């Protein structure tokens, strides 16, 4: 339950399955808080609707899904000032992964930063601090912020 406490500022969870954030999805599913989406853009849409209705949403996904939600992130969240916390499993972070993860693995951080979404990359034990930093930017700029999760960070 350590991971959930890092996310105490959030009350709406959706996303698409990923092995690097699987433990968090399990934790949130056990409490009935997690609503799975069919694809990452639908997760971003649903979370944005929740924000508009007063919730504080968090979206979980693998970095391979970032492409699907780049359109809503840029033409909805950034311009409408709809903040979301994105918890993103970072496949291919060190270039040693299955081939389908290598291109996005190499470029996802720069891709997010290029469109104006701040990125935080915690080490083991650093999730609380990374989430707090992301929340700071979400509050001050009213934009989405991403926390990239490498292997071992969520246990």
């Amino acid at each position, binding site marked *: 339950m350590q991971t959930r406490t890092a996310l105490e500022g959030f009350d709406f969870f959706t996303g698409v399955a990923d092995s690097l954030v699987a433990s968090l999805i399990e934790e949130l599913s056990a409490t009935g808080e997690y609503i799975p989406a*069919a694809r990452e853009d639908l997760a971003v849409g649903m979370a944005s*609707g*929740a924000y*508009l209705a007063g919730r504080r949403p968090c979206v979980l996904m693998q970095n391979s899904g970032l492409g699907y939600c780049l359109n809503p992130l840029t033409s909805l969240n950034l311009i*409408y000032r709809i903040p979301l916390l994105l918890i993103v499993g970072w496949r291919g972070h060190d270039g040693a992964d299955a081939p389908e993860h290598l291109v996005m693995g190499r470029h996802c951080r720069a891709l997010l930063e290029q469109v104006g979404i701040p990125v935080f990359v915690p080490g083991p034990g650093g999730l609380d601090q990374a989430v707090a930093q992301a929340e700071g930017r979400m509050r001050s700029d009213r934009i989405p912020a991403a926390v990239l999760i490498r292997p071992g960070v969520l246990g």
Partner: protein
Amino acid sequence: MTTREAIGIVARELTDELVVCTTGYTCRDMQAAADRAANFYMIGSMGCAASIGLGMALSSPGRRVLVLDGDGALLMGLGVLPMVGTLKPRNLIHLVLDNGVFASTGNQPTYSRSVALDSLARAAGYSVLKRAETAEELKRGWGEVRSQAGPIFFLVKCRPDAGQPMERVRLSPEAITDRFREAVGVAH
């Protein structure tokens, strides 16, 4: 009935519903028919109107949420149908203005000409299915669904409007968010 006429019929009977309008002329026609603080004009992110409405409906169970979707927009993200059909928010009305084309970009055809979108919604598990092909059917059906428990899928067959489009959405995206959240009663 044209798409704009259909939007006008729906808009006239609105009370306190939260309304999500899909990208393009739907936003502009809704603004012209009934500009309300509880309208969310989604000018970008085509294909996300239904998922936004689903998130709203789950988060505001005391408010009715109406999604004004389009056939082309819905076909972009069909994965939302089983999500709605499974989560079953009773307060969600998913109304699809089905004119068979991408009207805002010059009437290029969509696949709704060969696939009945309400049959997909039925398979996905929506609680109520309704279809209107004339203005009279829409008026009657819209009156009926507003007292029914959802999720409701309402397919409205219409034809694209001819002539000049209505004025672009006047508010900035950020102002739309602020006005909408205020209408919902969210503190800043």
